[in-house]
């Protein structure tokens, strides 16, 4: 039904969206201005930009967490609605329920789906094992390392089998080694069962390593400055050492540099 290679059927359509952020105190900020973006099913797209460019805001709008005030966002043809399990989200700071064990966290969405108890247990266990947390089912999040917390959060989100994955700088709070391990794992998961991923990051290498397309955003107010295709061989585990990889990083870094300077 969907054809990602042809690209004619779009799963997510963002059309001239602007968004004003109104803090409880202080001035209003125009976070996004006239942003348009189309994403095909099973596509891995990175939203790249300096901090404060509104890339997370765009993600929250697609997730239905913030109201679309100007422009339109359509998911599979219908205007974006309230948040739901079709759009899984992973946050930078994990957002695990601290009062629930790893198992109970992963089971949370499955309970809401109304699955029978044994099915919940079975499915939670298989996702916990998939992210390598076997043996930590009964641990509370406070007892886990950052990397393990993010694995648990990923398992919780994937367990409800979302049609798309919204990732808000998911590896931004992890140390460098853990981050690169998690990147490899995410890529492996995505290759095994491709779902649509929107991945917010300010790390150019990360964006090139993971995504098929990179939407480079400008500093405040956020606009899509350029969309760069990344056609790299994902099956090569040493891709990040290849000249093509370096060239792509350079190309995108040149686009981002100006914005990063402006955002300082």
């Amino acid at each position, binding site marked *: 039904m969907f054809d990602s290679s042809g690209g004619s059927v779009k799963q997510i359509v963002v059309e001239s969206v602007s968004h004003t952020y109104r803090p409880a105190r202080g001035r209003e900020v125009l976070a996004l201005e006239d942003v348009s973006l189309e994403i095909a099913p099973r596509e891995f797209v990175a939203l790249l930009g300096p901090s404060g460019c509104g890339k997370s805001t765009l993600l929250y709008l697609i997730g239905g967490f913030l109201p679309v005030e100007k422009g339109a966002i359509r998911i599979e043809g219908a205007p974006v609605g309230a948040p739901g399990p079709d759009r899984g989200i992973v946050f930078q700071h994990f957002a695990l329920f601290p009062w629930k064990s790893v198992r109970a966290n992963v089971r949370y969405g499955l309970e*809401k789906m109304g699955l029978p108890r044994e099915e919940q247990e079975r499915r939670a266990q298989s996702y916990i094992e998939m992210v390598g947390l076997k043996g930590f089912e009964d641990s509370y999040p406070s007892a886990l390392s950052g990397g393990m917390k993010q694995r648990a959060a990923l398992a919780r989100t994937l367990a409800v089998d979302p049609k798309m994955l919204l990732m808000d700088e998911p590896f931004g709070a992890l140390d460098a080694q853990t981050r690169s391990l998690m990147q490899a794992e995410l890529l492996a998961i995505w290759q095994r069962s491709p779902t649509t991923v929107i991945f917010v990051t300010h790390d150019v290498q990360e964006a090139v390593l993971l995504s098929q397309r990179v939407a480079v955003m400008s500093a405040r107010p956020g606009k899509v400055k350029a969309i760069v295709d990344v056609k790299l061989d994902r099956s090569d585990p040493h891709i990040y050492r290849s000249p093509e990889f370096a060239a792509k990083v350079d190309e995108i870094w040149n686009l981002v540099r100006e914005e990063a300077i402006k955002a300082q």
Partner: protein
Amino acid sequence: MRYLPLLLCALIWEGIVQLGLVSRDVLPSLSDVLKAAWMLAREGDLWTNGVASLYRGGMGLLLAIVVGAVLGVLMAWWRAVDAFVGPLVEALYPMPKSALIPVTVLWLGFGDGSKILLIFLGCMLPVTLAAYNGARSSEQALVWSARSLGAGRLRVLWDVVAPSALPELLNGVRTALALAFVLLVSSELIVARKGLGYLIGFLGEGGVYDAMFAVVLVVAFLGFFADRLYLAGTRRLLAWRE
């Protein structure tokens, strides 16, 4: 042994009275007080009045916790509730609740009702404020995670906002617990026909000072014991934080 200082105080108390440093009219010896406590327990006065007091305190506190917690969470979650109830809570919070003793007696008489109402009114606000602050501190990302995992808005209130508020709420309840004892005893001292506070006043007026001190000790011990029990319970409920 953490409570060694308490034991030391008990010894000093007994010592200064036995040595005649303090007149027995002002401070009966600890041994006399314990003897009096034993007599009060054997004759049943301690039980009938103790049960009455615990019932009033327990009911008042229970109502305060339930109503206060619900009110606090609702205030944090719906702006309209906050706008309406918030100023009332702020205005009433600093008021000394013992001033309400005559009012509650006027409304509900000398029995249990007036004490329960007083404790309920006095203890509700600290619980409300604690629940409010706790619920307000619930993380946006947690609320959003729950929503994206299929929880509706009301469900999030129970699944995320309430447990987020719990640590703060439990602190507020501890304050309320201490306050409940204060209000209970002072209201019973002033207007009551039974209860531990009433017993203290009755024995004091009758000049039976060792028995009066015995009841004061019992009240102090009850307060201490309730607080310890409460803390132990709190630790179990918040085991996930360690």
